[in-house]
């Protein structure tokens, strides 16, 4: 229904331009949807979907070509679920099994928006996907199916490593009447953590407030601002009032939160970080602190001791690299494969970011040679942190899937 409403909205604002020849109009829209300005590709894609069989026919042609769904571009790919043609939906599901698919989060989102009861097991499988954005989108699809099964699956996502996945699972559970899950959202209102310069706590507060507003009604969050620090008197008073309301709804079920869901404390002395976001290998977030700690993931639940001098060595490597790189900050073309290095050098309050990005195709020399020693040092340092077997190899694989092979 939502897809149909959206389609109606778009089609009523812009009539078809070539009504006399639907096939020509479909081809024109296909071109805009795949080659036009990124800003209008989604609109063109939805208009194509609204054309019915004429629109579907030109898209099917593309899907049957050698490069298949990859020839559609991200906007039309995500719009596949808006077509009435069931084959489009099948293509979307199949594309999620492709490890080279750079748009898996968009595919999961598209499918979840129009989820069918019988697809619940498939969405449930996505809850353990290696990419957090896919897991987050899958939550909505799981919630559409059998209620008991949905609740069981979503409870497991309440301890996901990713905050957004936990928030979405908590929201979905609360919608299904499991009000104890509201505790996760209340706790997120207390977050004020950051990951170097990324204020994850503030994002968590904003998303939790939006979710609570939808669940409890706008009036329930009146006067609360996610921009206020959670330890300010006004924010504390509002959070307490919200918590009282949620506890009332939950009755005796108010839970003790697992460590992963607790508002993280501040990580002192974080000076180096790397975000490795790979379509194929998944995600790794690593930070190093001045007192030789390795912080794995978003929060503060996984902190490992490193040999003395580990971070100093990394900083040295980083400084050497930055001298070579100068002011060049970004390498590659836009895409959702990202390798982002963050260096907070002595005397600087903000981190200096170097970003490598690419689409699905391998780019063997994407990482500038000057960054190779930094990446090697990161792999060795993290490998020394006493994590499970295969950990160092996993980090290396992820690095290489992004910036290309490391030099010998």
């Amino acid at each position, binding site marked *: 229904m939502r897809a149909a409403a*959206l389609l109606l909205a778009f089609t009523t*604002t812009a009539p078809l331009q070539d009504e006399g020849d639907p096939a020509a109009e479909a081809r024109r829209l296909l071109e805009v949807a795949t080659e036009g300005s990124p800003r209008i590709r989604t609109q063109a894609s939805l208009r194509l979907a609204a054309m019915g069989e004429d629109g579907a026919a030109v898209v099917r042609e593309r899907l049957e070509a050698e490069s298949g769904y990859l020839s559609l571009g*991200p906007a039309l790919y995500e719009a596949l679920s808006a077509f009435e043609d069931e084959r489009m939906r099948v293509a979307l599901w199949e594309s999620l099994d492709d490890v080279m698919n750079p748009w898996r989060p968009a595919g999961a989102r598209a499918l979840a928006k129009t989820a069918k009861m019988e697809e619940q097991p498939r969405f449930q499988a996505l809850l353990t996907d290696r990419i957090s954005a896919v897991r987050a989108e899958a939550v909505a699809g799981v919630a559409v199916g059998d209620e008991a099964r949905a609740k069981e699956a979503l409870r497991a996502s309440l301890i996901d490593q990713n905050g957004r996945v936990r928030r979405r699972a908590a929201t979905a559970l609360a919608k299904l009447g499991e009000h104890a899950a509201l505790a996760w959202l209340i706790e997120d209102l207390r977050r004020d953590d950051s990951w170097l310069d*990324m204020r994850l706590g503030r994002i968590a507060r904003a998303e939790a407030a939006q979710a609570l507003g939808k669940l409890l009604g706008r009036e329930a969050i009146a006067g609360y*601002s*996610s921009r206020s620090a959670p330890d300010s008197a006004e924010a504390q008073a509002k959070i307490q009032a919200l918590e009282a309301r949620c506890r009332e709804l939950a009755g005796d079920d108010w839970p003790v939160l697992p460590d992963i869901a607790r508002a993280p404390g501040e990580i002192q002395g974080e000076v180096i970080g790397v975000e490795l976001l790979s379509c194929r290998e998944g995600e790794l977030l690593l930070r190093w602190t001045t007192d030789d700690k390795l912080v794995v993931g978003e929060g503060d639940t996984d902190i490992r001791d490193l040999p003395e001098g580990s971070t100093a060595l990394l900083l040295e490597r980083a400084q050497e690299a930055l001298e070579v790189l100068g002011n060049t*900050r970004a390498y590659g073309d836009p895409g959702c494969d990202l390798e982002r290095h963050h260096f907070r050098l002595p005397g600087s309050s903000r981190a200096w970011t170097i970003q490598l*990005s690419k689409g699905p195709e391998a780019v063997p020399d994407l990482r500038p040679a000057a960054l190779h020693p930094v990446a090697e040092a990161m792999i060795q340092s993290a490998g020394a942190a006493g994590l499970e077997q295969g950990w160092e190899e996993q980090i290396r694989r992820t690095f290489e899937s992004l910036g290309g092979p490391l030099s010998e």
Partner: protein
Amino acid sequence: MRPVKILLLLICSLGLSAAAPPVAPSAAQDPVYELSLLDLMSIEYKPGQKLPTWVRALNGHKVRVEGYMALGTPEGLEKFELVWDSCGCGQSIVNHFIEVTLTEETTAFNPDIIYVEGYFYASEVREDGYIVSLFRLKAPKIQI
């Protein structure tokens, strides 16, 4: 009652959480409201329909927004798209970016979190039957 106070009352009375923008006034004459891209993205936007009252209330006012330059922003342009995440994956959805026009400098891609402060405008801009922008901001320069 002064217009700014009326605006503040209007925004506060709507009871918006992350969307409630009142923040301390800037050194300049006009007050600056902090605006979040996440709030703009949360709007259930449909072409042709009125934007929420709190967004319209900010129209023409000075705001400060944090975000990222969209990936692939070329050098030397007056305009760029401000998106909320570093991968800039939301560029194809019109309520997921702000079109920023710089008046005192041109673009040089920066992968850090950036801030822009300037006058905010919210309305549909159409070209050839498509909506090409919903949110715009005119700022002298990027703040780091």
